[in-house]
């Protein structure tokens, strides 16, 4: 066995609770420990007592490092993380919008190359990550002294809370620096709207939906299923759906339990964005559409023949529940 690895996990919180992305990052850190031993330390950017308390209850975390005061601003936060991380062999964060802003800054100041969106860990220095929109999986070995990694949340299990004693908490001073950029507005999406990236059900349409009217039917189905609405690039380009609904290589990746594809031919750029879905169901009137090869089951027919029946069946279910 090689030397012990000292793994620092950058923690994020959603309303005081440890973020799912962070729980996955801790599981990824635990995998590195399995390859040659080591310890997992959690680094917080906030000193809020609620966050510190929930962080110290996580399984597998030895120490929780808390800043003397909450670190404001991406630049200053990155400086703080860089100073702490310089004593570690690994820095891991979940793939999130904050990690996207902070970790490359940390990598550059430590003069190391970041390893983004890791989906599998093969050794303490060897990682698998998707490239070309997920159509290729690359295994690479990092030769940097500190491995700075973002871990894809859906690829690692969520770490549990621990029973018994909480982890010990260490307070670190924050280096001087200016918090220059200011957050002026945070918009938390529409209330009740299911986010595409984390939806359990996604109802998506392609060019075969023929227009915005078709998409409003898909939207109704998505709502009845408690899911999110998505679209292919072909549908977005034709103006049937807005750009933020785009799934695939130049849009979002989804990993729902159920993916319903209506009027989607199945271009490779779309498939790479949906391949992590548990069950894929395709409805397309062209029997030769490639989407059927990538589906668990499908039906060769016009989307507009199936949609009303599905919507009616769900409305009927809701009515029976109410009764």
């Amino acid at each position, binding site marked *: 066995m090689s030397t012990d690895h000292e793994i620092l996990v950058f923690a994020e919180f959603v309303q005081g609770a440890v973020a799912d992305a962070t729980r996955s990052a801790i599981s990824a850190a635990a995998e590195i420990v399995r390859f040659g031993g080591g310890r997992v330390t959690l680094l917080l950017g906030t000193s809020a007592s609620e966050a510190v308390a929930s962080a110290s209850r996580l399984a597998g975390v030895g120490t929780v490092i808390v800043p003397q005061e909450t670190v404001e601003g991406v630049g200053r936060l990155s400086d703080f993380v860089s100073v702490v991380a310089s004593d570690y062999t690994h820095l891991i964060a979940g793939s999130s919008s904050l990690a996207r802003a902070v970790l490359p800054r940390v990598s550059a100041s430590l003069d190391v190359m970041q390893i983004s969106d890791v989906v599998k860990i093969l050794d303490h220095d060897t990682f698998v990550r998707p490239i*070309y929109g997920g159509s290729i999986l690359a295994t690479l070995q990092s030769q940097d002294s500190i491995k700075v990694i973002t871990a894809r949340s859906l690829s690692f299990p969520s770490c549990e809370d621990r029973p018994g004693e909480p982890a010990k908490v260490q307070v670190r001073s924050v280096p001087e620096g200016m918090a220059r950029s200011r957050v002026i507005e945070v918009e938390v999406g529409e209330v009740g709207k299911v986010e595409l990236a984390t939806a359990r059900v996604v109802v998506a349409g392609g060019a075969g939906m023929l227009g915005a009217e078709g998409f409003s039917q898909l939207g109704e189905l998505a709502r009845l299923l408690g899911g999110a609405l998505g679209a292919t690039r072909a549908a977005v380009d034709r103006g049937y759906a807005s750009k933020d609904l785009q799934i695939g290589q130049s849009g979002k990746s989804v990993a729902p339990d159920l993916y319903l594809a209506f009027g989607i031919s199945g271009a490779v750029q779309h498939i790479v964005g949906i391949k992590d879905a548990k069950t894929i169901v395709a409805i397309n009137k062209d029997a030769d559409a490639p989407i059927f090869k990538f589906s668990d089951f499908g039906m060769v027919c016009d989307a507009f023949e199936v949609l009303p029946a599905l919507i009616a069946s769900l409305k009927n279910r809701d009515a029976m529940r109410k009764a």
Partner: protein
Amino acid sequence: MKAIVAIKRVVDPNIEVRVTPDGMGVATANLKSTMNPYDENALEEAVRLKEQAIVTEVVAVSIGSKAAEEMLRGALAQGATRAVHVESAEPLDSLAVAKVLAAICEREDPALVLLGRQAVDDECGAVGAMLASLLNWDQGICASKIHIADRIVTVRQSADSGTVTVEMELPAVVTADFCLNTPRTPGFASIVAAKRAKVEKITAASLGKDLRPRHKIVHMEQPDAGRGGVILETVEGLLEKLKMEAGFM
């Protein structure tokens, strides 16, 4: 006010790439290439800022082999005022690219650097924030809206859920999300003019930075996305299947 737009040449995202027979790389030779789509959004935004007279000069910069020059002419046709080709025979990783761009920024002294949120080939999504770090500048990441007034840039950033809008003083690095704008198609006259335009050249090695790769490729493979593909005949059959197998309805 000068803006730099960093653009990368990538394989046309509409083409399905394959792993080389030795499983050590991606077979990109002879495939149609194009400007990285997110960089196209960055360039479009810079050109619009120039049209609004907020930016006076748009310098397109690309790093790579001879073929990058062709793409830079495309950027000139789209409205860039100057083009700088940083020659590098070897592909560079994000850290090396950020170092090269930082060196270019020191020479050019721009107020704003725009680039795509990530390249659609290696998908690291790291260059923008790395560059901001090396320059000790502020940053906006995954911009879906940019507004500049009185040397303050306001950036609406796409976040995990919703958006986060930040404001900062220039200079700054801003990376473009695909919903920032719809890039224009250049007209015939500007394409012809760009063919005659000068593309400035500089070699990456002459910048005196440590550009060696930090990762070694161990293996590459194509995941098999194929599934069962059971075809159902009736809507009732479909409903039944959704109920039984997927646990929905």
